[in-house]
Protein backbone atom coordinates (compact mmCIF):
# COMPACT_ATOMS: atom_id res chain seq x y z
CA UNK A 1 0.00 0.00 0.00
CA UNK A 2 1.42 3.32 -1.08
CA UNK A 3 2.34 5.60 1.80
CA UNK A 4 1.20 9.14 1.15
CA UNK A 5 3.16 12.20 2.24
CA UNK A 6 1.54 14.43 4.82
CA UNK A 7 0.66 17.00 2.23
CA UNK A 8 -0.80 14.46 -0.21
CA UNK A 9 -2.85 12.86 2.54
CA UNK A 10 -4.52 16.11 3.53
CA UNK A 11 -5.11 17.27 -0.05
CA UNK A 12 -6.71 13.95 -1.00
CA UNK A 13 -8.71 14.02 2.22
CA UNK A 14 -10.36 17.28 1.28
CA UNK A 15 -10.97 15.98 -2.25
CA UNK A 16 -12.74 13.03 -0.59
CA UNK A 17 -10.37 10.63 -2.34
CA UNK A 18 -9.23 7.39 -0.70
CA UNK A 19 -6.18 7.77 1.54
CA UNK A 20 -3.87 5.44 3.47
CA UNK A 21 -4.91 6.45 6.97
CA UNK A 22 -6.58 9.24 8.90
CA UNK A 23 -4.64 12.51 8.66
CA UNK A 24 -3.73 14.17 11.94
CA UNK A 25 -3.92 17.94 11.81
CA UNK A 26 -6.04 20.95 12.68
CA UNK A 27 -7.36 24.07 11.03
CA UNK A 28 -6.49 26.03 14.14
CA UNK A 29 -3.21 26.75 15.86
CA UNK A 30 -1.05 23.75 16.68
CA UNK A 31 2.05 25.53 17.92
CA UNK A 32 3.53 23.84 20.99
CA UNK A 33 5.66 25.50 23.63
CA UNK A 34 8.35 22.83 23.35
CA UNK A 35 9.04 23.98 19.78
CA UNK A 36 9.06 27.64 20.80
CA UNK A 37 11.47 26.86 23.64
CA UNK A 38 13.77 24.92 21.38
CA UNK A 39 13.95 27.93 19.09
CA UNK A 40 15.13 29.94 22.08
CA UNK A 41 12.39 32.59 21.86
CA UNK A 42 9.45 33.63 24.01
CA UNK A 43 5.87 32.82 23.02
CA UNK A 44 5.11 36.55 22.70
CA UNK A 45 7.78 36.87 20.00
CA UNK A 46 6.63 34.15 17.61
CA UNK A 47 3.78 36.32 16.35
CA UNK A 48 6.06 39.11 15.23
CA UNK A 49 8.18 37.85 12.32
CA UNK A 50 7.50 35.60 9.34
CA UNK A 51 10.51 33.44 10.14
CA UNK A 52 9.46 32.81 13.73
CA UNK A 53 5.84 32.24 12.80
CA UNK A 54 6.63 29.78 10.02
CA UNK A 55 9.58 28.30 11.91
CA UNK A 56 7.53 27.56 15.03
CA UNK A 57 4.73 26.06 12.95
CA UNK A 58 7.12 23.76 11.11
CA UNK A 59 9.00 22.76 14.23
CA UNK A 60 5.77 22.05 16.10
CA UNK A 61 4.37 19.81 13.37
CA UNK A 62 7.73 18.05 13.05
CA UNK A 63 7.93 17.40 16.79
CA UNK A 64 4.32 16.27 17.03
CA UNK A 65 4.11 14.32 13.79
CA UNK A 66 1.21 16.34 12.39
CA UNK A 67 0.29 16.48 8.71
CA UNK A 68 -0.35 20.21 8.37
CA UNK A 69 0.85 23.63 9.48
CA UNK A 70 -1.42 26.57 10.23
CA UNK A 71 -0.64 30.25 10.90
CA UNK A 72 -1.16 32.75 12.45
CA UNK A 73 -1.88 31.79 16.06
CA UNK A 74 -3.77 34.84 17.25
CA UNK A 75 -7.07 36.40 16.24
CA UNK A 76 -5.80 39.95 16.24
CA UNK A 77 -4.01 40.29 12.87
CA UNK A 78 -6.85 41.97 10.97
CA UNK A 79 -8.00 44.05 13.93
CA UNK A 80 -4.44 45.32 14.33
CA UNK A 81 -4.18 46.06 10.60
CA UNK A 82 -7.33 48.17 10.62
CA UNK A 83 -5.99 50.21 13.52
CA UNK A 84 -7.12 48.63 16.80
CA UNK A 85 -3.62 48.02 18.17
CA UNK A 86 -2.10 44.90 19.67
CA UNK A 87 -1.21 43.67 23.14
CA UNK A 88 1.58 41.08 23.05
CA UNK A 89 2.10 40.49 26.81
CA UNK A 90 5.85 40.45 26.35
CA UNK A 91 6.48 40.77 30.07
CA UNK A 92 4.09 38.12 31.26
CA UNK A 93 5.56 34.90 32.60
CA UNK A 94 2.51 33.01 31.34
CA UNK A 95 1.57 32.02 27.82
CA UNK A 96 -0.96 34.58 26.63
CA UNK A 97 -2.26 35.06 23.11
CA UNK A 98 -2.05 38.56 21.66
CA UNK A 99 -5.29 40.53 22.03
CA UNK A 100 -6.83 43.74 20.71
CA UNK A 101 -6.71 46.69 23.12
CA UNK A 102 -8.65 49.49 21.37
CA UNK A 103 -12.00 48.64 19.91
CA UNK A 104 -14.16 51.25 18.24
CA UNK A 105 -16.99 52.56 20.41
CA UNK A 106 -19.71 52.78 17.77
CA UNK A 107 -20.48 51.17 14.43
CA UNK A 108 -20.34 54.57 12.72
CA UNK A 109 -16.83 55.29 13.96
CA UNK A 110 -15.34 52.24 12.26
CA UNK A 111 -13.06 53.24 9.43
CA UNK A 112 -11.39 50.39 7.54
CA UNK A 113 -8.30 51.40 5.55
CA UNK A 114 -8.52 50.10 1.98
CA UNK A 115 -4.97 48.76 2.12
CA UNK A 116 -5.40 46.85 5.40
CA UNK A 117 -3.84 43.75 3.80
CA UNK A 118 -0.55 45.65 3.58
CA UNK A 119 -0.58 46.96 7.15
CA UNK A 120 0.81 45.83 10.50
CA UNK A 121 1.47 42.08 10.55
CA UNK A 122 -0.52 41.17 7.43
CA UNK A 123 2.65 41.05 5.25
CA UNK A 124 4.34 38.92 7.91
CA UNK A 125 1.54 36.38 7.70
CA UNK A 126 1.83 36.38 3.89
CA UNK A 127 5.55 35.79 4.09
CA UNK A 128 5.04 33.00 6.63
CA UNK A 129 2.69 31.27 4.18
CA UNK A 130 5.31 31.60 1.45
CA UNK A 131 7.88 29.92 3.69
CA UNK A 132 5.48 27.13 4.66
CA UNK A 133 4.44 26.47 1.07
CA UNK A 134 8.03 26.46 -0.10
CA UNK A 135 9.00 24.00 2.64
CA UNK A 136 6.54 21.61 1.05
CA UNK A 137 6.48 18.84 3.66
CA UNK A 138 3.16 19.71 5.24
CA UNK A 139 -0.25 20.70 4.00
CA UNK A 140 -0.68 24.41 4.61
CA UNK A 141 -3.87 25.74 6.18
CA UNK A 142 -5.04 29.34 6.31
CA UNK A 143 -7.91 30.62 8.40
CA UNK A 144 -9.92 33.71 8.96
CA UNK A 145 -12.51 34.67 11.53
CA UNK A 146 -16.10 34.69 10.40
CA UNK A 147 -17.67 38.13 9.91
CA UNK A 148 -19.50 38.18 13.24
CA UNK A 149 -16.47 37.12 15.26
CA UNK A 150 -14.25 39.51 13.33
CA UNK A 151 -16.71 42.30 14.04
CA UNK A 152 -16.37 41.44 17.73
CA UNK A 153 -12.62 42.00 17.47
CA UNK A 154 -12.97 45.58 16.26
CA UNK A 155 -16.09 46.83 18.05
CA UNK A 156 -17.62 45.89 21.38
CA UNK A 157 -19.40 42.59 20.94
CA UNK A 158 -22.16 43.88 23.21
CA UNK A 159 -22.98 46.64 20.73
CA UNK A 160 -23.31 44.10 17.99
CA UNK A 161 -25.44 41.71 20.03
CA UNK A 162 -27.84 44.41 21.13
CA UNK A 163 -27.78 46.04 17.70
CA UNK A 164 -28.76 42.76 16.11
CA UNK A 165 -32.18 43.24 17.67
CA UNK A 166 -32.52 46.98 17.96
CA UNK A 167 -30.56 48.33 15.05
CA UNK A 168 -30.81 45.54 12.56
CA UNK A 169 -30.03 47.45 9.38
CA UNK A 170 -26.86 49.07 10.67
CA UNK A 171 -25.60 45.76 12.03
CA UNK A 172 -26.47 44.04 8.79
CA UNK A 173 -24.53 46.64 6.78
CA UNK A 174 -21.61 46.32 9.14
CA UNK A 175 -21.53 42.54 8.85
CA UNK A 176 -21.57 42.89 5.07
CA UNK A 177 -18.48 45.08 5.38
CA UNK A 178 -16.84 42.48 7.61
CA UNK A 179 -17.72 39.76 5.12
CA UNK A 180 -15.94 41.73 2.39
CA UNK A 181 -12.83 41.82 4.58
CA UNK A 182 -13.02 38.11 5.26
CA UNK A 183 -13.37 37.34 1.57
CA UNK A 184 -10.58 39.69 0.54
CA UNK A 185 -8.11 38.23 3.02
CA UNK A 186 -8.98 34.57 2.60
CA UNK A 187 -9.03 34.84 -1.21
CA UNK A 188 -5.59 36.34 -0.93
CA UNK A 189 -4.35 33.33 1.06
CA UNK A 190 -5.98 31.13 -1.53
CA UNK A 191 -3.99 32.93 -4.24
CA UNK A 192 -0.75 32.30 -2.34
CA UNK A 193 -1.42 28.59 -2.81
CA UNK A 194 -2.48 27.23 0.58
CA UNK A 195 -4.06 23.77 0.62
CA UNK A 196 -7.12 24.31 2.77
CA UNK A 197 -9.05 27.10 4.48
CA UNK A 198 -10.94 27.40 7.73
CA UNK A 199 -13.57 30.01 8.56
CA UNK A 200 -13.88 30.30 12.32
CA UNK A 201 -17.15 31.90 13.30
CA UNK A 202 -16.49 30.95 16.88
CA UNK A 203 -18.33 33.69 18.71
CA UNK A 204 -21.63 32.78 17.06
CA UNK A 205 -22.68 29.56 18.80
CA UNK A 206 -25.81 29.18 20.83
CA UNK A 207 -23.96 30.32 23.96
CA UNK A 208 -24.68 33.75 22.56
CA UNK A 209 -27.17 33.63 19.68
CA UNK A 210 -30.45 31.84 19.18
CA UNK A 211 -30.69 29.49 16.19
CA UNK A 212 -33.21 31.92 14.76
CA UNK A 213 -30.78 34.79 14.95
CA UNK A 214 -28.01 32.58 13.58
CA UNK A 215 -30.18 31.86 10.61
CA UNK A 216 -30.90 35.49 9.81
CA UNK A 217 -27.74 37.20 10.94
CA UNK A 218 -24.88 34.73 10.38
CA UNK A 219 -25.86 32.24 7.71
CA UNK A 220 -26.26 34.55 4.68
CA UNK A 221 -22.76 35.97 5.14
CA UNK A 222 -21.13 32.59 5.59
CA UNK A 223 -22.91 31.31 2.50
CA UNK A 224 -21.51 34.23 0.52
CA UNK A 225 -18.01 33.48 1.79
CA UNK A 226 -18.06 29.78 0.95
CA UNK A 227 -19.46 30.40 -2.50
CA UNK A 228 -16.51 32.72 -3.20
CA UNK A 229 -13.87 30.06 -2.39
CA UNK A 230 -12.33 27.44 -4.66
CA UNK A 231 -9.97 25.84 -2.15
CA UNK A 232 -11.51 23.27 0.24
CA UNK A 233 -12.91 25.16 3.19
CA UNK A 234 -14.00 24.23 6.71
CA UNK A 235 -16.60 25.99 8.86
CA UNK A 236 -15.63 25.88 12.53
CA UNK A 237 -17.74 27.03 15.45
CA UNK A 238 -16.92 26.44 19.10
CA UNK A 239 -19.22 26.38 22.07
CA UNK A 240 -22.85 25.33 21.76
CA UNK A 241 -23.63 24.09 18.23
CA UNK A 242 -26.06 21.17 18.54
CA UNK A 243 -29.04 23.36 17.69
CA UNK A 244 -27.46 24.89 14.57
CA UNK A 245 -25.87 21.87 12.87
CA UNK A 246 -28.38 21.79 9.96
CA UNK A 247 -27.97 25.54 9.48
CA UNK A 248 -24.19 25.26 9.45
CA UNK A 249 -24.46 22.50 6.91
CA UNK A 250 -26.37 24.76 4.53
CA UNK A 251 -23.55 27.29 4.20
CA UNK A 252 -21.67 25.42 1.50
CA UNK A 253 -18.54 24.45 3.44
CA UNK A 254 -16.66 21.28 2.44
CA UNK A 255 -16.24 20.32 6.07
CA UNK A 256 -17.76 21.18 9.44
CA UNK A 257 -15.73 21.39 12.64
CA UNK A 258 -17.09 21.37 16.19
CA UNK A 259 -15.77 21.49 19.71
CA UNK A 260 -16.36 19.18 22.63
CA UNK A 261 -19.74 20.69 23.44
CA UNK A 262 -21.21 19.16 20.28
CA UNK A 263 -22.95 15.79 20.48
CA UNK A 264 -21.02 14.44 17.55
CA UNK A 265 -22.68 11.07 16.95
CA UNK A 266 -25.99 12.89 16.64
CA UNK A 267 -24.44 15.49 14.37
CA UNK A 268 -23.15 12.82 12.01
CA UNK A 269 -26.67 11.42 11.81
CA UNK A 270 -28.07 14.84 11.02
CA UNK A 271 -25.60 15.77 8.27
CA UNK A 272 -25.29 12.32 6.72
CA UNK A 273 -22.19 11.02 4.98
CA UNK A 274 -21.66 13.70 2.35
CA UNK A 275 -19.90 16.35 4.36
CA UNK A 276 -16.59 15.92 6.14
CA UNK A 277 -16.95 16.23 9.92
CA UNK A 278 -14.03 17.22 12.14
CA UNK A 279 -13.68 17.31 15.88
CA UNK A 280 -14.02 17.34 18.77
CA UNK A 281 -11.71 16.84 21.71
CA UNK A 282 -11.22 19.49 24.38
CA UNK A 283 -7.74 20.82 23.62
CA UNK A 284 -6.90 21.92 27.13
CA UNK A 285 -8.64 19.14 29.01
CA UNK A 286 -7.07 16.47 26.82
CA UNK A 287 -3.64 17.59 25.68
CA UNK A 288 -2.62 19.67 28.69
CA UNK A 289 -4.44 18.20 31.65
CA UNK A 290 -4.52 14.45 31.07
CA UNK A 291 -1.85 12.67 33.04
CA UNK A 292 -2.05 9.40 31.16
CA UNK A 293 -1.74 9.10 27.36
CA UNK A 294 -4.04 6.07 27.53
CA UNK A 295 -6.83 8.47 28.46
CA UNK A 296 -6.08 10.48 25.34
CA UNK A 297 -6.38 7.30 23.33
CA UNK A 298 -9.87 6.77 24.74
CA UNK A 299 -10.90 10.31 23.80
CA UNK A 300 -9.56 9.99 20.25
CA UNK A 301 -11.27 6.62 19.73
CA UNK A 302 -14.55 8.09 20.91
CA UNK A 303 -14.28 10.89 18.33
CA UNK A 304 -13.68 8.31 15.61
CA UNK A 305 -16.52 6.10 16.83
CA UNK A 306 -18.80 9.13 16.87
CA UNK A 307 -18.16 9.57 13.15
CA UNK A 308 -15.48 12.18 12.49
CA UNK A 309 -13.35 11.97 9.36
CA UNK A 310 -10.37 13.38 11.20
CA UNK A 311 -9.88 13.99 14.90
CA UNK A 312 -9.52 17.73 15.44
CA UNK A 313 -9.15 19.73 18.63
CA UNK A 314 -12.19 21.88 19.45
CA UNK A 315 -10.06 25.02 19.32
CA UNK A 316 -6.40 26.08 19.18
CA UNK A 317 -4.14 23.64 20.97
CA UNK A 318 -3.03 25.27 24.18
CA UNK A 319 0.75 25.47 23.58
CA UNK A 320 1.70 24.03 26.94
CA UNK A 321 0.81 20.46 25.90
CA UNK A 322 2.29 17.20 27.09
CA UNK A 323 4.06 15.81 24.04
CA UNK A 324 3.16 12.25 25.04
CA UNK A 325 -0.49 13.20 24.84
CA UNK A 326 0.01 14.62 21.36
CA UNK A 327 1.77 11.45 20.34
CA UNK A 328 -1.18 9.43 21.61
CA UNK A 329 -3.52 11.57 19.48
CA UNK A 330 -1.36 10.99 16.40
CA UNK A 331 -0.80 7.29 16.99
CA UNK A 332 -4.41 6.48 17.81
CA UNK A 333 -5.71 8.45 14.79
CA UNK A 334 -3.35 6.62 12.48
CA UNK A 335 -3.97 3.14 13.87
CA UNK A 336 -7.63 3.29 14.84
CA UNK A 337 -8.22 5.45 11.75
CA UNK A 338 -6.84 2.87 9.33
CA UNK A 339 -10.39 1.85 8.51
CA UNK A 340 -12.46 4.18 6.37
CA UNK A 341 -14.28 7.08 7.94
CA UNK A 342 -17.87 7.99 7.01
CA UNK A 343 -16.84 10.20 4.09
CA UNK A 344 -13.28 9.21 3.20
CA UNK A 345 -12.33 5.79 1.84
CA UNK A 346 -8.99 4.04 2.15
CA UNK A 347 -6.56 3.01 -0.55
Amino acid at each position, binding site marked *: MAELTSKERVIKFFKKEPIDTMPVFSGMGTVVIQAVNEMGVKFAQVHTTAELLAGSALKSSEMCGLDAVVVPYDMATVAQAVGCGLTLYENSADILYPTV*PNKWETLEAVDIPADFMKRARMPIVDEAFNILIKDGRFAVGAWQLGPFTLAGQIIE*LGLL*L*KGAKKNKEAVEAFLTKMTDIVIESIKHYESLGVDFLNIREMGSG*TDLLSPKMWNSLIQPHLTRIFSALKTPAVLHICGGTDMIVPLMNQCGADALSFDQKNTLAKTREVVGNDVIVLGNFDP*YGTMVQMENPADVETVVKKCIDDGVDAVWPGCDLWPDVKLDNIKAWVKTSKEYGKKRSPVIGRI
Partner: protein
Amino acid sequence: MSKSKEELLKALAEAVVEYDEDACKELSQEVLDNPNTLTPMEAVMNGLAAGMEEVGRLYDTHEYFVPEVLMCADALYAGLGILRPHIPKAEAGVNAQVVIGSIQGDVHDIGKNLVKMMFDVAGWGVHDLGRDVPLEQFVEKQLDTNSEVVAMSAMMTTTMLGMKKVIAMIKEKNPECLIMLGGAPVTKDVANLFGADGYADSAGNAVSEGIKMIGRLREFQASKK
Protein backbone atom coordinates in the same frame (compact mmCIF):
# COMPACT_ATOMS: atom_id res chain seq x y z
CA MET B 1 -55.28 57.23 38.07
CA SER B 2 -51.93 56.40 39.53
CA LYS B 3 -50.86 52.80 39.85
CA SER B 4 -51.01 50.74 43.01
CA LYS B 5 -47.80 49.47 44.56
CA GLU B 6 -48.26 46.02 43.03
CA GLU B 7 -49.08 47.41 39.61
CA LEU B 8 -46.04 49.61 39.62
CA LEU B 9 -43.70 46.81 40.70
CA LYS B 10 -45.12 44.50 38.08
CA ALA B 11 -44.81 47.14 35.38
CA LEU B 12 -41.17 47.79 36.32
CA ALA B 13 -40.34 44.09 36.22
CA GLU B 14 -42.09 43.72 32.88
CA ALA B 15 -40.28 46.69 31.40
CA VAL B 16 -36.99 44.98 32.27
CA VAL B 17 -38.12 41.64 30.85
CA GLU B 18 -39.34 43.30 27.68
CA TYR B 19 -36.13 45.37 27.49
CA ASP B 20 -38.11 48.55 27.25
CA GLU B 21 -35.66 51.27 28.34
CA ASP B 22 -38.14 54.10 27.90
CA ALA B 23 -40.77 52.38 30.01
CA CYS B 24 -38.15 51.71 32.69
CA LYS B 25 -37.31 55.40 32.79
CA GLU B 26 -40.92 56.56 32.84
CA LEU B 27 -41.93 54.07 35.53
CA SER B 28 -38.91 54.97 37.66
CA GLN B 29 -39.89 58.61 37.41
CA GLU B 30 -43.41 57.60 38.40
CA VAL B 31 -41.97 55.96 41.51
CA LEU B 32 -40.24 59.21 42.47
CA ASP B 33 -43.39 61.23 41.74
CA ASN B 34 -45.50 59.04 44.04
CA PRO B 35 -43.39 58.68 47.18
CA ASN B 36 -46.33 57.29 49.14
CA THR B 37 -46.75 54.30 46.86
CA LEU B 38 -43.27 52.87 46.79
CA THR B 39 -39.76 53.72 47.98
CA PRO B 40 -36.98 53.83 45.38
CA MET B 41 -35.28 50.94 47.20
CA GLU B 42 -38.39 48.77 46.91
CA ALA B 43 -38.70 49.71 43.26
CA VAL B 44 -35.15 48.57 42.60
CA MET B 45 -35.25 45.35 44.56
CA ASN B 46 -38.83 44.16 43.96
CA GLY B 47 -39.32 45.76 40.55
CA LEU B 48 -36.15 46.02 38.48
CA ALA B 49 -34.23 43.20 40.15
CA ALA B 50 -37.29 40.95 40.18
CA GLY B 51 -37.54 41.52 36.44
CA MET B 52 -33.91 40.56 36.01
CA GLU B 53 -34.53 37.39 37.96
CA GLU B 54 -37.20 36.45 35.44
CA VAL B 55 -34.75 37.26 32.65
CA GLY B 56 -32.30 34.81 34.22
CA ARG B 57 -35.00 32.16 34.17
CA LEU B 58 -35.79 32.83 30.52
CA TYR B 59 -32.08 32.57 29.72
CA ASP B 60 -31.76 29.25 31.52
CA THR B 61 -34.67 27.82 29.55
CA HIS B 62 -33.24 29.06 26.22
CA GLU B 63 -36.12 31.43 25.63
CA TYR B 64 -33.72 34.36 25.87
CA PHE B 65 -30.18 34.43 24.55
CA VAL B 66 -27.38 36.83 25.35
CA PRO B 67 -28.62 39.70 23.09
CA GLU B 68 -31.91 39.83 24.97
CA VAL B 69 -30.15 39.63 28.34
CA LEU B 70 -27.89 42.56 27.44
CA MET B 71 -30.85 44.66 26.37
CA CYS B 72 -32.68 43.82 29.59
CA ALA B 73 -29.58 44.94 31.46
CA ASP B 74 -29.66 48.26 29.62
CA ALA B 75 -33.30 48.71 30.55
CA LEU B 76 -32.50 47.91 34.16
CA TYR B 77 -29.65 50.44 34.22
CA ALA B 78 -31.96 53.08 32.72
CA GLY B 79 -34.25 52.69 35.71
CA LEU B 80 -31.43 52.35 38.19
CA GLY B 81 -29.90 55.62 37.00
CA ILE B 82 -33.05 57.44 38.01
CA LEU B 83 -33.81 55.62 41.25
CA ARG B 84 -30.36 55.11 42.73
CA PRO B 85 -29.62 58.78 43.60
CA HIS B 86 -32.77 58.79 45.73
CA ILE B 87 -31.92 55.78 47.85
CA PRO B 88 -30.61 56.95 51.25
CA LYS B 89 -27.16 55.56 51.99
CA ALA B 90 -28.30 53.84 55.16
CA GLU B 91 -30.94 51.96 53.23
CA ALA B 92 -28.66 50.90 50.43
CA GLY B 93 -28.17 47.44 51.83
CA VAL B 94 -24.76 46.05 52.58
CA ASN B 95 -22.84 49.29 52.13
CA ALA B 96 -19.87 47.41 50.75
CA GLN B 97 -17.55 47.86 47.81
CA VAL B 98 -16.31 45.44 45.20
CA VAL B 99 -13.46 45.63 42.69
CA ILE B 100 -14.32 43.60 39.60
CA GLY B 101 -12.60 42.72 36.33
CA SER B 102 -11.66 40.05 33.81
CA ILE B 103 -8.16 38.77 34.35
CA GLN B 104 -5.13 39.60 32.20
CA GLY B 105 -5.13 37.91 28.83
CA ASP B 106 -8.87 37.40 28.95
CA VAL B 107 -11.05 39.67 26.84
CA HIS B 108 -14.28 37.86 27.68
CA ASP B 109 -16.40 40.32 29.61
CA ILE B 110 -20.05 39.63 28.91
CA GLY B 111 -20.48 37.43 31.98
CA LYS B 112 -18.41 39.78 34.13
CA ASN B 113 -20.62 42.69 33.12
CA LEU B 114 -23.73 40.81 34.20
CA VAL B 115 -22.16 40.08 37.57
CA LYS B 116 -21.23 43.74 37.89
CA MET B 117 -24.83 44.68 37.18
CA MET B 118 -26.07 42.51 40.03
CA PHE B 119 -23.71 44.25 42.46
CA ASP B 120 -24.90 47.61 41.12
CA VAL B 121 -28.51 46.63 41.68
CA ALA B 122 -27.78 45.48 45.19
CA GLY B 123 -26.36 48.90 46.01
CA TRP B 124 -22.69 48.00 46.30
CA GLY B 125 -20.00 50.48 45.34
CA VAL B 126 -18.59 48.91 42.20
CA HIS B 127 -15.12 49.56 40.78
CA ASP B 128 -15.03 47.98 37.35
CA LEU B 129 -11.52 47.54 35.95
CA GLY B 130 -12.83 46.18 32.64
CA ARG B 131 -11.23 43.25 30.86
CA ASP B 132 -7.68 42.07 30.24
CA VAL B 133 -6.75 43.61 33.60
CA PRO B 134 -3.06 43.41 34.56
CA LEU B 135 -2.67 41.39 37.74
CA GLU B 136 -1.21 44.24 39.85
CA GLN B 137 -4.18 46.47 39.03
CA PHE B 138 -6.51 44.36 41.14
CA VAL B 139 -4.15 44.77 44.07
CA GLU B 140 -3.72 48.50 43.59
CA LYS B 141 -7.42 49.22 43.19
CA GLN B 142 -8.28 47.19 46.26
CA LEU B 143 -5.76 49.13 48.34
CA ASP B 144 -6.90 52.49 46.93
CA THR B 145 -10.57 51.90 47.58
CA ASN B 146 -10.30 49.62 50.59
CA SER B 147 -12.99 47.46 49.01
CA GLU B 148 -14.19 44.48 50.99
CA VAL B 149 -14.40 42.19 47.97
CA VAL B 150 -12.34 41.62 44.83
CA ALA B 151 -14.26 39.67 42.16
CA MET B 152 -12.36 38.21 39.23
CA SER B 153 -13.65 36.61 36.09
CA ALA B 154 -11.76 34.19 33.85
CA MET B 155 -13.29 32.45 30.85
CA MET B 156 -10.26 30.47 29.80
CA THR B 157 -8.67 27.59 31.65
CA THR B 158 -5.36 29.24 30.93
CA THR B 159 -6.00 32.79 32.08
CA MET B 160 -7.61 31.35 35.19
CA LEU B 161 -4.12 30.66 36.51
CA GLY B 162 -3.47 34.41 36.77
CA MET B 163 -6.18 34.62 39.44
CA LYS B 164 -4.15 32.44 41.76
CA LYS B 165 -1.30 34.93 41.54
CA VAL B 166 -3.59 37.88 42.25
CA ILE B 167 -5.00 36.13 45.31
CA ALA B 168 -1.51 35.59 46.70
CA MET B 169 -0.56 39.20 45.97
CA ILE B 170 -3.68 40.62 47.62
CA LYS B 171 -3.63 38.34 50.65
CA GLU B 172 -0.02 39.27 51.28
CA LYS B 173 -0.87 42.97 51.46
CA ASN B 174 -4.29 42.64 52.98
CA PRO B 175 -5.23 39.24 54.43
CA GLU B 176 -8.77 40.34 55.28
CA CYS B 177 -9.74 41.24 51.73
CA LEU B 178 -12.30 38.78 50.41
CA ILE B 179 -11.89 37.27 46.98
CA MET B 180 -14.58 35.86 44.78
CA LEU B 181 -13.99 33.99 41.54
CA GLY B 182 -16.21 33.11 38.64
CA GLY B 183 -16.36 32.35 34.93
CA ALA B 184 -16.99 29.22 32.90
CA PRO B 185 -13.86 27.16 33.69
CA VAL B 186 -13.84 28.10 37.37
CA THR B 187 -15.44 25.70 39.83
CA LYS B 188 -15.90 25.79 43.57
CA ASP B 189 -12.97 23.41 43.90
CA VAL B 190 -10.70 25.59 41.79
CA ALA B 191 -11.69 28.63 43.82
CA ASN B 192 -10.84 26.79 47.04
CA LEU B 193 -7.59 25.52 45.63
CA PHE B 194 -6.53 29.01 44.59
CA GLY B 195 -7.29 30.33 48.08
CA ALA B 196 -10.38 32.36 47.19
CA ASP B 197 -13.09 33.07 49.75
CA GLY B 198 -16.06 32.62 47.49
CA TYR B 199 -17.35 31.43 44.17
CA ALA B 200 -20.56 31.77 42.20
CA ASP B 201 -21.61 30.01 39.04
CA SER B 202 -23.88 32.79 37.83
CA ALA B 203 -24.55 36.48 38.12
CA GLY B 204 -27.70 35.68 40.05
CA ASN B 205 -25.75 34.02 42.85
CA ALA B 206 -22.78 36.37 42.94
CA VAL B 207 -24.20 39.02 45.24
CA SER B 208 -25.60 36.64 47.84
CA GLU B 209 -22.24 34.89 47.87
CA GLY B 210 -20.56 38.26 48.42
CA ILE B 211 -22.83 39.04 51.32
CA LYS B 212 -22.22 35.62 52.85
CA MET B 213 -18.48 36.12 52.55
CA ILE B 214 -18.67 39.43 54.35
CA GLY B 215 -20.89 37.87 57.00
CA ARG B 216 -18.32 35.14 57.61
CA LEU B 217 -15.53 37.68 57.85
CA ARG B 218 -17.43 39.80 60.37
CA GLU B 219 -18.18 36.75 62.50
CA PHE B 220 -14.53 35.83 62.40
CA GLN B 221 -13.46 39.34 63.37
CA ALA B 222 -15.98 39.40 66.21
CA SER B 223 -14.72 36.08 67.53
CA LYS B 224 -11.18 37.45 67.65
CA LYS B 225 -12.13 40.41 69.81
